[in-house]
């Protein structure tokens, strides 16, 4: 099983500096500090550069989430920029609402999470029962937790959707993400179920990238969206 390494500080310095030399301000949205040291490494990069470029602002934001939930925050920041919102307005929004971006994911097997140290054996034991599919999300501290366990697979989609409907404001949703780890068939079926709800907004189907996938393993799928209330 591969190990992933956090963002390299010198790489972040190099990339940031390309834009700082143009006089840009920087907003960087990072994978949860509860899952990776990437955030801390990028903060080091920020500290190295801030004195050198005192006229530029650098905000490094711990998303306290990951995968497309982190991505949805970045896409929101981009939309706000396109709408003409200024740096402070974007930062204020992200810091206020980043905790509202939820990702919930059925994992086929918790072995990968245990191996990667992303979930404790005690917490995982809930999901290790025979034929039980654990539903995970990321808690307020940015760490993976098992929130429900479902016997068999028939109810997985309805559980994901019911939980989403209880958490979202249908009139205030930019996008719903459908994410999977090498389970396109399951994700497509889930997307069909979600689209039947006729919720206004964009639907984004994506494969979970190698970094997260190496921790959760293949076969899972789930949803990500902005909640109306806190977790």
């Amino acid at each position, binding site marked *: *099983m*591969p*190990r*992933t*390494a*956090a*963002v*390299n500080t010198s*790489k*972040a310095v190099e*990339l*940031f500096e390309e*834009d700082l030399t*143009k*006089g*840009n*301000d*920087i*907003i*960087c*949205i*990072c*994978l949860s500090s509860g899952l*990776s040291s*990437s955030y801390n490494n*990028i903060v080091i990069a920020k500290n190295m550069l801030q004195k050198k470029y005192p*006229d*530029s*602002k650098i905000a490094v934001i711990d998303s306290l989430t*990951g*995968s*497309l939930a*982190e*991505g949805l925050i*970045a*896409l929101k*920041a*981009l939309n706000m*920029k396109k709408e003409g919102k*200024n*740096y402070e307005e*974007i930062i204020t929004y992200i810091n206020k609402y980043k905790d509202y971006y939820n990702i919930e994911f059925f994992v086929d097997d918790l072995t990968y999470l245990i191996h990667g140290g992303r979930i404790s054996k005690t917490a995982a034991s809930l999901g290790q029962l025979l034929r039980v599919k654990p539903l995970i999300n990321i808690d307020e501290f940015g760490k993976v937790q098992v929130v429900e366990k479902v016997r068999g697979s028939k109810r997985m989609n309805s559980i994901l959707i019911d939980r989403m409907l209880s958490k979202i404001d249908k009139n205030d949703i930019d996008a719903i993400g459908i*994410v999977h*780890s*090498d389970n396109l068939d399951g994700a497509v079926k889930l997307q069909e179920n979600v689209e039947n709800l006729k919720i206004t907004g964009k639907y*984004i*189907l*994506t*494969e*979970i*990238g*190698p*970094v*997260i*996938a*190496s921790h959760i*393993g*293949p076969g899972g799928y789930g949803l990500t969206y902005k909640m109306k209330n806190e977790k």
Partner: protein
Amino acid sequence: MNDISIFVDKCSDIPNIKDYPEIKTIPIYYYFNGEDIEYGDEKNLTMREILIK
């Protein structure tokens, strides 16, 4: 007013991120047991390729 650059790390999983040139990605590296090889963003491995390693 300065222009704003938006960065994410590789874990944001935004599909077709090249369609959003305004968002820049910081790579994350992978190390494989038994191989003295470091894969970064440039290698651009798929999730499936990672899992069969």
